């Protein structure tokens, strides 16, 4: 009986001892890991906070670098520069088209690379990774000389082609990773239950790939929106948002740029949150 009581008490006693030790430890040593994490987060978010705050800056002159008071003026006046509007519209349409085209091609590429063994497979892998790792200056310069050699007029469509080219690999890699971890017998089960190969793809394979395709597509969108280097080579006289800002730095960036940046950031956060909610609902 005594033994039973003793063993019964021991776990509780040990736990109490442990938690006492932990409390004592916290008093003695600050939790550096926590502070460090917060420091990194601040470092990451500082530029964004700066951009948002300065979209409300009531500046009188050309330079938006010192705080001069709060205003909503730039938001009501967001589209005061017609050039900037055109550039922003170009950037957004190119990004959406890039997302769709690279999403489609990247999905097919990822499926082929993850599922089948074929001639030229390792070469395809190599090209894909070199498209990611090659310096953008090199890519931009070679794209420009290619377009010139082929006598293609640079402009909106060459920007789109370039963006699809460098972002398709990212979609392919995310899709391939998903394909590789997918249980092949899930598709076999669909075939076994009477689904034709096409129905199997539509009802089983594609739905299972959707998360990977979505994240790959969002990466493509993000890459396209803020690409400067490659775009600057193949843009001709077409303006995009990053190109316009770069041009404006010489004369002073108007607060409208901060406003648009804030809006783009806000939409991005909303999309990411929406995707998370959807993913959670899917898994339920």
């Amino acid at each position, binding site marked *: 009986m005594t033994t039973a009581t003793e063993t019964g008490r021991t776990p509780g006693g040990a736990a109490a001892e442990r938690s006492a030790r932990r409390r004592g430890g916290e008093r003695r040593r600050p939790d550096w890991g926590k502070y460090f994490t917060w420091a990194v987060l601040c470092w990451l978010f500082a530029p964004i906070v700066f951009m948002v705050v300065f979209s409300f800056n009531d500046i009188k002159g050309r330079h938006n670098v010192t705080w001069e008071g709060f205003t909503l003026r730039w938001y009501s006046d967001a589209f005061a520069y017609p050039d900037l509007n055109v550039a922003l519209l170009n950037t957004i349409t190119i990004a959406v088209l890039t997302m769709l085209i690279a999403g489609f091609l990247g999905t097919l590429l990822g499926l082929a690379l993850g599922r089948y063994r074929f001639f030229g497979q390792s070469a395809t892998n190599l090209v894909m990774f070199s498209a990611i790792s090659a310096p953008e200056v090199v890519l931009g310069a070679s794209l420009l000389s290619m377009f010139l050699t082929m006598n293609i007029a640079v402009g909106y469509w060459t920007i789109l082609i370039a963006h699809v080219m460098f972002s398709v690999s990212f979609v392919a890699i995310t899709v391939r990773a998903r394909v590789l971890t997918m*249980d092949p*017998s*899930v598709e*076999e*089960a*669909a*075939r*076994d*239950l*009477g*689904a*034709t190969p096409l*129905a199997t793809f539509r*009802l*089983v394979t594609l*739905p*299972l790939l959707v998360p990977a395709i979505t994240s790959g597509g969002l990466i493509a969108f993000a890459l396209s929106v803020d690409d400067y280097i490659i775009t600057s080579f193949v843009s001709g006289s077409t303006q995009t948002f990053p190109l316009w800002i770069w041009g404006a730095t010489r004369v002073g960036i108007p607060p409208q740029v901060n406003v648009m940046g804030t809006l783009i950031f806000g939409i991005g956060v909303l999309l990411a949150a929406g995707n998370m909610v959807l993913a959670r609902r*899917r*898994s*339920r």
Partner: protein
Amino acid sequence: MATATEESRARQGAGAPSGAAAISLEQIVKTYRSGGEDVQAVRGVDLRIEQGEFFSLLGPSGCGKTTTMRMVAGFEDPTSGTVRLHGDDVTGIPPHRRDVNMVFQSYALFPHMTVFDNVAFGLRRKGEAAGEIRRKVAESLELVELSGRERTKPGRLSGGQQQRVALARALVNRPSALLLDEPLGALDLKLRQAMQIELKRIQRDVGITFVYVTHDQGEALTMSDRIAVMNGGRVEQLGTPAEIYERPATRFTAGFIGTSNLLSGTVDGHRGGFAEIGIDGAGEILAECDSPAGSRVDLTVRPEKIALDTAEPSADRARLPGVVAEVVYLGSTTHYTVRLGDGTEIVVFRQNSSDAASAADRGDTVWVSWRPEHAYALPGT
């Protein structure tokens, strides 16, 4: 449930031409090319699986059992040979046009669909009416005791429940045969034993032919009507669980199924229906054996058929002297290892019943004995 059973009976009567086996495999060979070399996974398998039978393909991994099953399902095409379902040649017909369904080792449930949609998948592919689908799915989930979980996604179910969804998803289509590929492999021991009984009950209820692939001999013995023991791409032995256990036809079967004692010896002569066999370095015993005098044989004796005595047993029993090398007490039974004169070790299982005589201890000199008909002779090496 009664309706489902009647339905399947009616269907068997109408669908199957009399005399045709549910599944028949004729001279099936499957060769893979792997690393520039041809690997024979299945080397000439002939099997007839009858309607309503619980049939197991039993063997170690790599013996060709899963490949054989996948050829029945249509996921693999045989290199040569014919697969027939109810007499119809289905060789080369893709899986979605074969009237068999499979339960996968990994369950292979559709993770993005609810339990209801998973089970309804096959019926929807066949284009059945919505009301009919609802009724059949409900019935099928009731059969596997998962009613009320229709709206759940598979990821939220336990392993055992996922297993039963996989079973319901296949059974709801009333296939002419259900193929099960090590379906209990991922479950823990207790659940596995419960599911074995459950599977057998379901099979009796629905009357569908079950083809069960497993490497677990206990599972095969518990559930099957007949077992094909496979090894190296061939069927080693085909028979009922009792036949396979009691009368293993080859050394492989004897060793793979249960614990078996193997004794090598030479036939010295025949006397009164039994053969006298000289066991190498251990003594002379009687056994059932047709081999002529002078031929080498291997005798297999199951451990539970062997008696352990301190006094010399009567002469009508096969008997050999030895020394107890190991005693392992296991509650309801005790396992003894007895070393014979030539060093061969014999395992003896003994029930710990109340009237059992006092057990032998390590180092005791004992006699092992059994009735001559309990030893089974295989061609020796």
